[in-house]
Structure formats: C-alpha cells, structure tokens
C-alpha cells in the first residue's frame, strides 16, 4: 500500500468511526496532506484500496453493526458483502424469512462501495434513489450475498446495479438499480 492510499484509507476509516457531532469533511481536510486532484490521478488506486478492512471497520459501527454486514469480495467497480442469517432480522417468526429491510441495506452498502472501487477516489456521496425487485424470499438460515456494481459515472451522478443471492449466484433473490449523487459536486 502506497503512502497516499494509506492516508486516504485511514481518513476513510476515520470518517466512518467519527463521533456523531463532528463533521467528517472537516476531519478529512485536516488529515489530508495531499490534494484531491493528486488522489484522482491514482489510477492504480482500486487495486490497493482495501474494502475488506474498511467494511470490517464499518461493520463495528452504526446500522451495519446492527444487521451484521460482512466483507465478501471485490474487484474493479464491484463489491460483494455478506449478510449472515439472524433471527433478530426476520419478518415473521413462524416462517423465519428475513425482512426485506436488511437486504435493502446490504444492497445500498454494496452498491455505494462499488462507486469508490470504480472511480478510485473517495467522493462524499448520497443515495438519490434505489429500486429493489424481490424475486423470491431468502431461504431461512442462509447467508445473503449482495453484489453491487457501478457501471457508469458522470461528474455528479453514479449509476449502479446489483443483485443478491443466498448461496447460488445463478438463482438471485433480488435485483437492484439506482443512482447516487456526489454531494461535493454541486
């Protein structure tokens, strides 16, 4: 890991572990000794970016901790997260079927991470919209894998798609499509 990506990564982790009253952007600026333009030129950055560590850090905090999201895999422009089955997340005790909310969160996370892996830079972003189609329920007891992919970015908007499965990638349980906007681009 180069010094630059190391610094960026630490800033990223720090952003996600900040106390709620502190402004993340302020800390990023204070901690960052390089310019965004330099970071944007780092074409090799995606291969050195370590989503596993970032996600494990994020999993120890906030909503991800509550639902138990885990790192599963990544590549250029895509990211996979795992959602282990939990009885605290079911929609109906009798059937044991997972609620759709945690799957929505899983896909929101996987697709938003895929944008950083696509661009190789960390730009603050917010979900504009996300549509999810539930093809069938996840089988009770199975870990759900969420695959998020960023397939296009403009100056302001990132376009994403993804799917989730519960063991067999050829038999998806859900598909998603959506957009994010870069909050600092306006």
């Amino acid at each position, binding site marked *: 890991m180069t010094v630059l990506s190391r610094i960026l990564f630490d800033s990223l982790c720090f952003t996600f572990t900040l106390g709620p009253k502190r402004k993340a952007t302020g800390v990023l600026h204070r901690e960052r000794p390089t310019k965004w333009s330099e970071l944007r030129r780092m074409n090799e950055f995606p291969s050195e970016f370590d989503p596993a560590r970032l996600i494990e850090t994020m999993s120890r905090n906030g909503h991800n901790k509550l639902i138990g999201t885990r790192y599963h895999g990544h590549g250029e422009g895509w990211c996979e997260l795992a959602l282990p089955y939990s009885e605290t997340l079911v929609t109906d005790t009798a059937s044991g079927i997972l609620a759709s*909310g945690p799957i929505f969160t899983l896909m*929101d996370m996987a697709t938003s991470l895929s944008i950083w892996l696509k661009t190789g830079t960390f730009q603050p972003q917010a979900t504009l919209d996300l549509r999810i*189609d539930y093809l069938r329920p996840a089988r009770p007891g199975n870990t759900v894998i969420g695959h998020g992919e960023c397939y296009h970015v403009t100056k302001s908007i990132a376009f994403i798609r993804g799917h989730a499965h519960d063991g067999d990638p050829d038999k998806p349980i859900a598909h998603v499509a959506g957009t994010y906007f870069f909050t600092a681009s306006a």
Partner: protein
Amino acid sequence: MKTSFSPYAQTMGFEEQRDADGRLVIAMPYSDGVRGRPGFVHGGALAGLLETIAYATLSEALGEDDRPLIKPVNVTATYMRGAVEVTTYARATIERLGKRIANIEAIAWQDDIEKPVAMAQINVMLDRSGRS
C-alpha cells in the same frame, strides 16, 4: 387495531403511534443502530422503516378477517434530504388495494411532514392461495 411488530421491527426500535387523524404512524427513534455516515440515518434503515409502515398500513386496511400473505414485489426509495440524529416518522397511503396487487406510497419525515427525508413506492402481491 394493534399491529404486531416483527423481530426486525423490534430490532430497529420501531414504535407504533397515531397522528391527530388517527392514522397509523411508525416512529424510529435515533440510535447508533440506525446510523449510516456520521450524523445521519442510514438509507437502508429509512427504507426498512418505509417498508414496515407500508405493510402495517396495508395489514390494517385488510382487516382481521382478510389475512393474505403479503409478498413484497418491489420498492423504489427516493432520498430527498439527509435524515439527522432525531426521531424519524413514517406513514403510508394505499393508492390501490386490489385482489392480488396493492400499490402503496410511504413517506418519512423528521420535524416537518412538509419536508420529507425519503419516500418510497411499494408494490406488493397478496397471496390468498391458502398458506399462512
């Protein structure tokens, strides 16, 4: 009618309320468990809240004698404002309740219902084939 909350809804800390018109409202108090980026509620938690109010409102509209399986078909969530560290409320409107399909719109707000933080269009299938 009392809506029985799922384990997921309990995990999220959802609370059932009524507005001045007697309409069902679900409150999601702010906690570390719903936090996304620092200072803001996670979009996934908001989507979960919007889905839950949609299914609860639908369940109430169907009544005690009609209990089909409610199967989610799709959810389109739109985020309009960052939801900050206060309680988020949600309510839903059933746009159409058919025999097999229901179309529901849900909104979430914090201090001012005129300034929603998120909304969702939710389509569900009503399965009366005998399971449940």
